[in-house]
């Protein structure tokens, strides 16, 4: 009995001193002989884990779990799998959402094809690191060595930060990337390449080059706020390229959109928009082969400055001139979404209000009260407008004058006199 207790105590001490990653399998699969393999770098303390599994059960699919008995860093996770079915999958779940320890970082995940004569299993990946209390790092943020997280499909990556390349194979979607810190760094962008769709990416700031072969639904940067709490920071920098941007939220950033955005085809759906809280500095190019009804909103928050320095091209049409306006102006900064509001503050002369006598008068009148003075007026919509009654030659406007103030409230407005004949249409579409 005493011998047995000593053995158990020794085993517990040995286990505690040798804290390590642990791989386990759900039903329907077995490890190949000699796997899993665990190798710890004696200099860095980081772990390399190799997994090779075979599906044995009823078709199709099984789970592989990676946990840890203490705080560990996974420097490299190498996985391969095969089975009797040509369309099966293995779902690798890295479970490290315990703030007291477990896996704090996953620096790379590499898929290895099982080789000739074997049916490879598609790798579906879920990594749930501690995104609040721990380091929860995806990629190698210490020595700067580029790392790759690759899989056929990504179900979810949840962490504190990403400093790596995220890649899915042809046709493989990225379902969710939920980062409670930043993706990439200002001087070192992350890359996210989806062989299919991207459903949802969100982080405080996104410094990344993002590419989806097919559709992007939602990419969000919430800064110091959240999905529902407004903030004035949060940046998306780098680039976003995709075929379509349909059926999701589109791009939403509380702060600046510095990234260049290219949507090769259409952008449709009842909520698919580009909302930019502050500055639009990136260039936006949206194709036109599909039917779309959405638009871009710059500076939609009351606190936004709404500067617009990037080039916007929609359907091959560059939207000019660029505006510099705020949410308080009529139109709200909507770009490319009908019906266009009139951007009064950007008109020439600018519309400045209607409360007498604080108007900024259009003309500094120094002539006789009877002298007529010519004026050119440019009304800006930031969208394509056209005269529906061309070529009849009729004007798409009427002009009236009245004496004194344009009344607001209870004052009595003077008689309106039609002087449309004294005004000429110079152009409709040239000066949007």
């Amino acid at each position, binding site marked *: 009995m005493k011998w047995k207790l000593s053995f158990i105590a020794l085993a517990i001490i040995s286990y505690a001193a040798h804290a390590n990653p642990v791989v386990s399998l759900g039903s329907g699969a077995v490890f190949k002989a000699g796997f899993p393999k665990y190798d710890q770098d004696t200099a860095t303390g980081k772990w390399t884990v190799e997994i090779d599994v075979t599906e044995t059960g009823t078709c199709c699919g099984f789970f592989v779990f990676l946990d840890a008995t203490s705080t560990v860093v996974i420097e490299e996770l190498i996985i391969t799998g095969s089975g009797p079915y040509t369309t099966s999958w293995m779902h690798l779940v890295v479970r490290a959402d315990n703030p007291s320890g477990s896996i704090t970082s996953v620096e790379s995940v590499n898929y290895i094809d099982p080789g000739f004569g074997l049916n490879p299993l598609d790798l579906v990946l879920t990594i749930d690191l501690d995104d609040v209390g721990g380091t929860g790092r995806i990629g190698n943020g210490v020595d700067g060595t580029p790392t790759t997280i690759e899989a056929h499909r990504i179900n979810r990556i949840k962490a504190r930060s990403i400093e790596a390349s995220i890649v899915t194979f042809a046709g493989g979607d990225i379902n969710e990337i939920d980062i409670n810190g930043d993706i990439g760094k200002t001087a070192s962008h992350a890359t996210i390449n989806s062989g299919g769709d991207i459903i949802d990416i969100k982080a405080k700031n996104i410094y990344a080059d993002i590419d989806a072969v097919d559709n992007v639904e939602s990419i969000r940067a919430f800064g110091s706020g959240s999905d529902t709490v407004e903030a004035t920071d949060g940046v998306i920098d780098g680039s976003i390229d995709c075929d379509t941007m349909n059926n999701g939220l589109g791009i939403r950033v509380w702060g600046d959109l510095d990234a260049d955005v290219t949507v090769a085809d*259409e952008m449709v759906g009842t909520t698919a928009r580009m909302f930019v809280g502050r500055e639009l500095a990136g260039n936006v190019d949206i*194709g*036109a*082969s599909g*039917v*779309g*009804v*959405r*638009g871009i909103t710059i500076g939609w928050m009351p606190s936004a400055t709404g500067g617009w320095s990037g080039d916007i091209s*929609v*359907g091959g049409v560059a939207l000019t001139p660029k505006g510099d306006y705020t949410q308080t102006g009529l139109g709200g900064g909507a770009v*490319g*979404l*009908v*019906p*266009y*509001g009139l951007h*009064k503050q950007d008109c020439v*002369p600018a*519309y400045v209000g*209607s409360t007498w006598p604080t108007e900024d*008068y*259009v*003309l500094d*009148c*120094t002539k006789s*009260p*009877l*002298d*007529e*003075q*010519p*004026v*050119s007026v*440019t*009304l800006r919509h930031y*969208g*394509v*407008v056209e005269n*529906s*009654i061309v070529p009849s030659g*009729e*004007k*798409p*406007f*009427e*002009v*009236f*004058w*009245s*004496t004194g103030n*344009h009344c607001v409230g209870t004052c009595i407005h003077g008689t309106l006199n039609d*002087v449309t004949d*004294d*005004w*000429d*249409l*110079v152009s409709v579409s*040239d*000066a949007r």
Partner: protein
Amino acid sequence: MKLDGLLLPNRHYHIVVDETLRCVNVFGSTVVETKPYTYILYCSPCP
């Protein structure tokens, strides 16, 4: 849209744009909507 006209002092002007000015959806579709509005101009009083 750009237009030229004449202003007289001590008056204000309404430029009324109706449905004849159409907004064309630039996202590749043929969707067209209209949005009437009135733009107000002032000519300052003479000294």
